[in-house]
């Protein structure tokens, strides 16, 4: 059981990393892009907006925790 837990912990750390919110934001951005692509509206902007919002947000949280 402990080995299984460490196996999943390794892959979680490998893929998701220090801030799970960034991974969730990426999944939401891809979902939004897909939903927009099914309409006549442009869909390309959702991912850049997600990066521009969540990267600073994640850094802000990281530096805030230091204090």
């Amino acid at each position: 059981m402990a080995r299984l837990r460490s196996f999943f912990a390794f892959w979680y750390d490998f893929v998701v990393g220090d801030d799970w919110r960034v991974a969730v934001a990426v999944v939401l951005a891809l979902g939004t892009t897909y939903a927009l692509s099914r309409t006549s509206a442009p869909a390309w902007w959702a991912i850049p907006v997600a990066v521009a919002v969540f990267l600073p947000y994640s850094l802000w949280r990281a530096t805030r925790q230091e204090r």
Partner: protein
Amino acid sequence: MKGGALFIAVFLACSVEAVEATTIILAAGTAHKSWRSAWLGSGAGLGVLALVVAVLGPAVTAVPLRGIRLVVGGLLLIFGLQWLRKAILRASGHKALHDEVQIFLDELAAAKASAAERRGAVADWYAFTLSFKGVVLEGLEVVFIVLTFGSNQHDVPLAALAALAAVVAVTVVGVVVHAPLSRVPENTMKFVVGIMLTSFGMFWGGEGAGARWPGSDASLPAIVAAVATLGLFLTVVLRRGLTVPASAS
């Protein structure tokens, strides 16, 4: 992306990982002068990684391109943002810089504290396992980069060649200098790699999810430039000790 760009992107990313693995191997071999065990462990690790590429390589290239771009682009974007986040924290002084000399000394102290134990054909089991783990763990990131970049460009062999060239180049330098490769501008390279992984992840992930980028492939350099500008801007802001506005772009 042309073949040359694919080669450079993978070479650069894999060089960073190879430098880290080399530091671990050097520490493992130096501790008890067990170079044979350290190289055996490294060889076994490379064998495992080659097996992973041989099994997963054909599998990922068999998946339709759009599906690959969605999954791989998404993973690459998450992965790239992790790298970029850490690189910005390091560049702005909020996280300790990656110091190969210090890592080498730490690993060396741990290796020296352990007894050299023979197991079968391996004279120093600790040096073997330390090298094996170092190569496999750092190498998994290399495999990930090779498969993501290679499958997206339908050229896994070229990506694998770039990774191999990076590993060979770093290993040769490591063997020649016989010391941790502290002169390699590793933190700067990690920053550049973080920008590249994030940009390619955005581009491929967007295409996989059905987006059409303005200007098609021509938008990729603009994405790279925008991510680089954002990364540098955030580094400057954090270095000045200012709080980062959550909506900054």
